[in-house]
């Protein structure tokens, strides 16, 4: 077990090779005119940083990069952040394995069509978590280093050590608590929530035009950053993502108040897998676990 998972320990050449391959593929599809734009990452101004980029000019293809700083789930740019680019035509998008699961989920939800996308998968050894050198918690337990079902996949996987699964351990720790202890845990965390909704803004699945939690007739969830509303917001958010969230953990990354939001998502994913054998984002499914049923579903909790 390696508890101090460092992205720096991964050979930089791997990222460089992947970067080259992404650039070549982006250039090729843009020149051939098969796509109108490539959604990828480019280097940020600060050394070692990266940010999402939309490239339409083949000569700019070599601005694209892949590095441990390529944390963003670009699926967001197809349905929410820059959804107008879809009107330009077919798009190419660079995805890590975890990002691809979001794309697959969105296809099942009628938001994207596979044939409208050229998917450039990148084999990802892991990206940064908090603090530039450490590996993100989700990457320590990643099961999708190599994206499947893409149009092309670039990069290769080094031998990775077995990292300490910090998220699973935290989940197990919480599950072992009494309800009162868990309540205290979440109460403490949600206390800090300032309702900036960064978690919502970055979530590829929060694509509603009008969020239920912004409605005021009726007001289901109080909007001010008070304890009652915060608790309701996080419960509703987790419930709405249940069976859909594919674990990109962007919500948690974006949270300025360090609330461990992905724990909620992971818990729901785990329960739905146990209950209905469902795992989000591996194949395009018309119906998620909460949009279908079996007559013999478990009902041991019902009197």
């Amino acid at each position, binding site marked *: 077990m390696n508890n101090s998972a460092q992205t720096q320990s991964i050979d930089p050449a791997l990222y460089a090779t992947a970067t080259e391959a992404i650039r070549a593929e982006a250039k090729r599809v843009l020149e051939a005119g098969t796509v109108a734009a490539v959604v990828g990452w480019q280097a940020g101004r600060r050394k070692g940083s990266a940010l999402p980029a939309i490239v339409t000019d083949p000569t700019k293809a070599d601005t694209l990069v892949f590095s441990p700083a390529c944390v963003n789930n670009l699926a967001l740019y197809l349905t929410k952040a820059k959804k107008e680019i879809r009107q330009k035509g077919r798009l190419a998008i660079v995805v890590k394995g975890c990002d691809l699961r979001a794309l697959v989920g969105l296809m099942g939800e009628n938001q994207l069509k596979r044939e409208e996308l050229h998917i450039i998968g990148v084999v990802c050894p892991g990206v940064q978590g908090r603090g530039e050198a450490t590996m993100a918690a989700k990457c320590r337990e990643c099961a999708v280093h190599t994206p499947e079902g893409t149009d092309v996949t670039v990069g290769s996987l080094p031998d990775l050590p077995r990292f300490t699964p910090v998220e699973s351990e935290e989940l197990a720790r*919480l*599950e072992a608590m009494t*309800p*009162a*202890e*868990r*309540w*205290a*845990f*979440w*109460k*403490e965390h949600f*206390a800090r929530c300032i309702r900036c909704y960064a978690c919502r803004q970055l979530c590829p699945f929060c694509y509603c035009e009008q969020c*239920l939690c912004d409605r005021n007739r009726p007001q*289901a*969830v109080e909007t001010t950053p*008070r*304890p*009652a509303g915060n*608790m*309701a917001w996080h*419960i*509703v958010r*987790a*419930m709405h993502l*249940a*069976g859909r969230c594919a674990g990109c953990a962007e919500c948690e990354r974006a949270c300025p108040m360090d609330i461990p939001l992905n724990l*909620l998502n992971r*818990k*729901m994913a785990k*329960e*739905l897998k146990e*209950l*209905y054998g469902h795992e989000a984002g591996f194949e395009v499914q018309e119906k998620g*676990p*909460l*949009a*279908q*049923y*079996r*007559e013999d*579903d*478990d*009902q041991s*909790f*019902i*009197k």
Partner: protein
Amino acid sequence: MHGHKEKHAFEPKIVAFVCTWCTYAGADLAGTSRLQYPANTRVVKFPCTGRIDPVFILRAFQKGADGVLVSGCHPGDCHYMAGNFHARRRFAAFRQLLDFIGVDLNRLQFSWVSAAEGGKWVEVVTELTERVRAMGPMPEFRELEAEECWSGAIDTPELKEAYETIP
């Protein structure tokens, strides 16, 4: 008829979300059969358990419910064929979420009560009422409602007085 009724120090507030075709009719049957049960439950009628949004449960707790009951038609009896099947999955997931947040699931009961099961309605409501009565008031959500921020403990006499007057 029953003997003299015992008075309890605490009477819980129970909210029941029921479908109109089975459980509501089952509760009606309990009435026409003159069965007796504790008066703590307030019924909200839905066409189908499929219509019941988890947000309603959350809201009921926030508005001071000490216990919540969700009840509908037995599997296969749904007037709309599949509403209760969808509800079953939805609530299977939701209760896990509430449990993970730290809500004691003893306060949240699900049941199938058919239009013919007046007796079962009485049984379910009585059992839940007695269980929740024994557990005492549900402080969690009500405290949140009262708190302006987490650090603000109710430590001044003014705040305490204001808190006490919250219904």
